[in-house]
C-alpha cells in the first residue's frame, strides 16, 4: 500500500492549471452556456442538465470526505450515506416548513403529518423554521453523530473489516428508522414537494442556477480544505496510519484521534453534500441513505482513484453521469455495470481513472524521452 505517489512530492505545484481550468469550466463556462446560447443551439446546456450536474457536484463533496477517511486513512466507512441523509433531512425539514399553506392539504403542517394524523408539529422540527439553524444543523448534526460513533469505534480500536461491518449495520439501522412513520420524518416517501428557499421559488431556473454556483463554490472550498488537511503534518500521519498503524503507535502518535478528526470532517462534508442535494433534486427519501447507496459512494472514490482528491471528484461525477445515462437507456444493465465496476476497479485499476491517466502520461513521457534521446545518440 505504500505507494510513493500518494504523498505528493511537489506540494503546491498541482494546484495549477487543472484546478483553475476546472473551476473556470464549472463556475463560468457551464452557467454561461446555460444562459447565453439560444435554446436550439448545440452549445446550449439545458436547465435540466445544469441541475443534474449540480447534483453530481454535491456528490463530489461527499466523495472528498470519503476519500479522506478511506483513501488517505485506510478506514472503510460503509455508512457515509447516513451522514449524507442527516444533512439532507435537516435541510429538507426546513424546506418542508417553508411550504406553509401551499401544501396539498393547506395546513401549516407538512402533508405527510396531516396524512398520519399528527396534530402538532413535533418539538424537534420547530428549530428548523429558521434557515441558519437548518444550514448549521445539516453540518453539525452529522458531525455530532460522527463524533459519538467515531469516538466509541476508534477508542476501542475497531478497525478494518470490523469497522466496515459496523458502519454498514449503522446504514441499515438508519434506513430502517427513517422508514418508520412514527419518527415523523416522512416514512418511505421521505420529504418532497418543496416550493421555495428564502423566498426564491425552487422551480425557477434562476434559483437552480444559483444553487449550482453555490455547489461549485462549496466544492471548491471543500477541495481546498481537504488539500490543506492532507498537506499538513496531520495528513502525513493519516497516510502513515493507513500504511502501518502499529508503527504510528510506536512513534508516539494516537491514531484514534487522527481517525476521529478525519471521520468527523468526512461526516460534515457528507452533511454539506446532503444540504446542497435536497433543494436541487427536490426529494430526499430513506432509499438514498441505506446500505446500497452508501456502498455506491465508496465506488465513486474507487473509480476516480482513491488517495487523490481530484480522483474523488472525478469519480463521483463520472460514475453518476454514467449512471444517469445508462439507467435511462438500459435500466436492467445498470446493476451489472455497477457490480462489474466494483470488481474491475478493485482488481485491475486500484488507482482508478487518475491512475490510468498518470500511467498514460508516464508512458507518453517515456516515448517523448526516447524520441528526444535518439538524435542525441546519433550525435554521439
Amino acid at each position, binding site marked *: 500500500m505504500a505507494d510513493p505517489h500518494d504523498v505528493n512530492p511537489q506540494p503546491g505545484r498541482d494546484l495549477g492549471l487543472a484546478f483553475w481550468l476546472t473551476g473556470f469550466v464549472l463556475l463560468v463556462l457551464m452557467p454561461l452556456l446555460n444562459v447565453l446560447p439560444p435554446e436550439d443551439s448545440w452549445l446550449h446546456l439545458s436547465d435540466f442538465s445544469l441541475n443534474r450536474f449540480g447534483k453530481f457536484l454535491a456528490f463530489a463533496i461527499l466523495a472528498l470526505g470519503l476519500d479522506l477517511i478511506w483513501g488517505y486513512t485506510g478506514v472503510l466507512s460503509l455508512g457515509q450515506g447516513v451522514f449524507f441523509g442527516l444533512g439532507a433531512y435537516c435541510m429538507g425539514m426546513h424546506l418542508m416548513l417553508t411550504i406553509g399553506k401551499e401544501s396539498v392539504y393547506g395546513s401549516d403542517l407538512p402533508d405527510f403529518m396531516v396524512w398520519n394524523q399528527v396534530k402538532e408539529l413535533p418539538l424537534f422540527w420547530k428549530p428548523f423554521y429558521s434557515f441558519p439553524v437548518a444550514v448549521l444543523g445539516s453540518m453539525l448534526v452529522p458531525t455530532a453523530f460522527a463524533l459519538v460513533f467515531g469516538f466509541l469505534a476508534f477508542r476501542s480500536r475497531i478497525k478494518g473489516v470490523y469497522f466496515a461491518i459496523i458502519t454498514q449495520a449503522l446504514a441499515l439501522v438508519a434506513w430502517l428508522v427513517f422508514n418508520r412513520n412514527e419518527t415523523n420524518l416522512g416514512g418511505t416517501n421521505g420529504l418532497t414537494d418543496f416550493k421555495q428557499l428564502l423566498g426564491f421559488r425552487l422551480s425557477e431556473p434562476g434559483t437552480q442556477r444559483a444553487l449550482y454556483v453555490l455547489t461549485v463554490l462549496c466544492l471548491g472550498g471543500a477541495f481546498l480544505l481537504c488539500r490543506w488537511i492532507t498537506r499538513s503534518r496531520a495528513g502525513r500521519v493519516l497516510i502513515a496510519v493507513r500504511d502501518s498503524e502499529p508503527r504510528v503507535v510506536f512513534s508516539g502518535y494516537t491514531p484514534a484521534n487522527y481517525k476521529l478528526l478525519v471521520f468527523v470532517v468526512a461526516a460534515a462534508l457528507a452533511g454539506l453534500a446532503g444540504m446542497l442535494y435536497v433543494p436541487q433534486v427536490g426529494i430526499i427519501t430513506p432509499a438514498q441513505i441505506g446500505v446500497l447507496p452508501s456502498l455506491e459512494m465508496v465506488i465513486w472514490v474507487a473509480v476516480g482513484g482513491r488517495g487523490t482528491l481530484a480522483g474523488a471528484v472525478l469519480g463521483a461525477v463520472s460514475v453518476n453521469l454514467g449512471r444517469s445515462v445508462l439507467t435511462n437507456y438500459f435500466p436492467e444493465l445498470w*446493476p451489472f455495470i455497477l457490480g462489474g465496476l466494483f470488481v474491475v476497479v478493485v482488481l485491475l485499476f486500484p488507482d482508478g481513472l487518475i491512475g490510468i491517466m498518470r500511467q498514460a502520461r508516464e508512458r507518453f513521457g517515456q516515448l517523448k524521452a526516447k524520441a528526444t534521446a535518439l538524435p542525441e545518440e546519433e550525435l554521439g
Partner: protein
Amino acid sequence: MRNVHVTRLSCSGVAAIVTRLSLGLLVLAGIVCLVAGQARAAGAPPSPVLTPLEQALTQIASDDDAVREAALRVVIEQGDSTILPRLEEIRANADRSVRLAIKPVMDLLRNRAKLEGPDPDARRSAATDLGTLGKPLAIPWLEQAAAKESYKWVRYTMLESAALLKLSGQDQAAKLGAVNSLGDLASQNAVPALKDIVAAGSGAEATEAQQSLADAANASIERIETWAVWSTAIETLFRGISLSSILLIMSVGLAIVFGLMGVINMAHGELMMVGAYATFMTQELFKAFLPATMFDYYFAVAMPMAFLVAAGCGLLLEVTVIRFLYGRPLETMLATWGISLVLMQAARVYFGDLTAVAAPAWLSGGLQVMVGVYLPNNRLFIILLSVICVITIYAILFRSGLGLRVRAVTQNRNMSACLGIPTRKVDAYTFAFGSGLAGVAGWALTLIGNVEPGLGQNYIVDSFMVVVTGGVGKLAGTIVASMGIGGLNKLLEPSLGAVYGKVCILVLVILFLQWRPSGLFAIKGRHADS
C-alpha cells in the same frame, strides 16, 4: 371441438338454452311442491315402511315451523353422515328459510361424522367447529369421542369444546364444572365467555348462583392468564432459538472463511440465494421428469445440489477474484459486493422476481408441546439442521486432515507455509466449503420464505454482525454470538418493535466491542497488528 362449438353459438341460441333451463327448473319446483303438498295432506305417515328418520326427512322442507323443528330434531338425533347427500338435495330445492334451517344441521352431522374419522387433524377441526356452533346437543358426542380418542391434543380440543358448549347451557352444576375444567385446560378460547360470566355475576341484581359462578370464572381466568404468560415466554424463547439457528447456519461459513483468510465475503448472501435457486431447480426437475409419488424426496436431493452448486460458485469466485486480493480485506469486501450485485441482478433477469418452493409434506404442520405452544416443523427442522451443521463442521475441523491444515493456517499462515502446507489450496477449498454452507443455508431458508433474488439480503447484515461479535478463529464465538443476537432480537421485538430492537442490538454490539474489540473469542497472540 366442443369449445369451438360453444363459441360459435349465437346469442339467440344462448337465450333459448337459458329459457329452456329455467322452464325445467320451474317444472321441477312444481313437482317438489306437489310432493310436499301430498305429504302434508296425508298428515300421518303415508306408508308404514318409512322409519321416523325417513319421515322427518320428508317433513324437513315443511312450511309449518313446528313440524320442521320437530323433523330437524329427529334428523339430528338419528341421522348420520349417510343422509348428508339427501339433505343437500333437499336444501338445493328448498327456499331460503328452509336452507338456513338445514345448514346448521348439516354442519352438525358432518362434524359428528368427522369426529370418528381416521384423520386426527380432521377430528380436531371437527371438535373446534362443534364448539363454535353452539349446540349443546353436541356435548355427549364430544365427550364420547374424547373417551375414545388416543391423540392427546385432539382429546384436549374435544374436552375444551364440550366445556365451552356447557357454558352456554342452563344447567348450573354443569356450568360450574365447565368453568373449572376450562381453567384446568388453560383454554385461551374460553376467556371471552368466562369474562361474560364474570360480568353477569358482578351486576347488582345478580343471583347468588351467578355470583359463585363468577368467582369460579375469575379463578379460572387467572389460571389461564398465568399459563398464557408462560406459554408466550416459551414461544418467544423458541422463536429466538429459531432465528439464532438461522443466523448460525448463515454465519458459520462466513466465520470460517473470515477466520482463515481475514476476508468477509459480501456475496455470501447471494451464494445462499444460489443454493435456494438450486433447490427450486431441483423441484422443477422432479416435477418435470419424475412421477408425482417421488416428489416429496426432491427436498432431500436438493440439499447436496445446493451445497455443490454454491460451493462451485464459491470456488470460481476464489480462483478468479479473491485470490488476487489476498491481504487486502477491504478491497475484497468491495469486489465481493460487486459480485453480489451481479448475481442478484442475474437471478432477477433469469428467474423473475418471485418463485416459491413447496415444502415437502413431512415438513409442513407442526408439533404442539403444550397448551398454546405450537412449534412449526420447518422451524424445528432448521434448529436440528444447525445442530447437525455445527457437529459436521467440528468433525471436519478437528478430525480430518483438511481441518488440521485449516486450523494451522488460521493460526499462523507463514509458519504453516514453511511447514509445507499449501496455503493457497487450503484457502480455495475452505472458501468453497464456506460457500457450500451458504448454499445449505439457502436450501433451508426456502422452507420459511420465498425464493427471490433479494433472499440473501434479508439476514445478511445480521450475520456479518454475528461474525464480528463472535470473533475469529473459534467456532464457539460464532455459536454464542448468533444465539445472543438472535435471542436478543426476539426478546426485544415484542416490547420495542422490530426496528428499534435492531437499533438496540447495534448499540449493544458497539458497546460490546468496547469491551472486546476483536469479538468474543479472539486468538491470543503477540501480533501488534491484526
